[in-house]
């Protein structure tokens, strides 16, 4: 999974898509994940990190992760693979 290269993200969770002019506010968790994705971490690595740091089971995380991907796709922020 890759976030589009030109997407601008800030540490406080503001996301700007310069191709469309769309902007979004991400919560703290989403912001951390976005920074990790932009830093080159794979989805497996990010999920492992979340499982270690937070009280969440793998099934719940997978469900939430799928929802998150759908939201990113709808927001036109993901590279088409």
């Amino acid at each position, binding site marked *: 999974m890759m976030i589009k290269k*030109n997407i*601008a993200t800030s540490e406080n969770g503001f996301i*700007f898509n*310069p*191709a*469309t*002019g769309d*902007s979004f506010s991400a919560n703290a968790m989403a912001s951390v994940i976005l920074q990790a994705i932009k830093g080159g971490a794979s989805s497996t690595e990010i999920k492992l990190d979340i499982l270690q740091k937070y009280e969440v089971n793998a099934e719940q995380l997978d469900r939430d992760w799928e929802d998150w991907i759908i939201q990113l796709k709808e927001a036109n922020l993901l590279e088409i693979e």
Partner: protein
Amino acid sequence: MATNYFGLCIGVTGLNANDNPGPGIAVIRALKEGLGNDIRIIGLSYESLEPGIYMHDLVDKTYQIPYPTAGIAALADRLAYIHDQENLSMIIPNFDAELHNFIKIVPELISIGVKTFLPSLNELGMRDKVNLLEFGNKNGLQVPADHKLFSLADLQNAAEDLKFPLVIKGKFYDAYVAFNMEAAKKAFHQLEATWGYPVIAQQYIKGTEINVAALGDGKGNNTGIVAMRKLYITDKGKAWAGVTVEDETLTELANHFAKITNWKGGYELELMRNADNELFILEINPRFPAWIYLAAAAGQNHPAALVKMAMGEEVAAFTEYQSGKLFIRHSWDQIIDIAEFQQMSAFGEL
């Protein structure tokens, strides 16, 4: 310290900085920023209440000029008088409705030493609202289907063919989205009374509004291209806030337009991107848009580049601009003395 452009005297129209603003004030702001504060700006106004007349930090002096309906002789005479007073270096007209007359008198302006940087009448005509669909079909550009309306019967036919909602547009300005026949008839009568025939009924395209401001060099290239997405739209459909965006398909579209028209001067593509990512050209305006200062703020000063090109300078094409720059328009109550208004109203000069 004086700049290279010290003493340059530029006439600018479009000083009506109201809720449906002319581009004049934005153009002047960009000129001062790009060429220095020691250029002289001569405002050319049609009415005494155009706010720019009284913005003395931007406009050095204003002269009233005749409405386009007065004809080219009246315009040429008035501009010759203004040139005698001010020694104009060049003129930048900024209204669609006045461009025809200004283009017609370009030879006379040249003969008295006043420069312009304008498209030809042929170029002006091909992108006219009335000809836009044909222009698009001929050049592989997506333009919403339309009907030219000369009667209520034409409107009925348009509604049956294009279905509601319909965009009912005036020949030069104004557009209303009509969701039923009653609203369409009202818009038709209003626009016919204001701007004359034909009124245009255009297919409504749902999507995201994007505008592109560009500057054609008259040789098939663009010297600059900046795209802006509207973020806040007034009830007149005008952008009250917008953000610069960067999208190669928009650049390609503008470059295609410049190539097929050899467009000379500023222009604006009004576009709609639908859910399938298709771009439709809603209008092509033959002048700088009112938001042109945003282009300058984002790194491409089109009005300053236009002046340089008109003066014969070689201007390298801009290759980039900053995306994510916003403009947010605002209202401002400007206070002037009645004596100034009286001077402008009575003598047509201030």
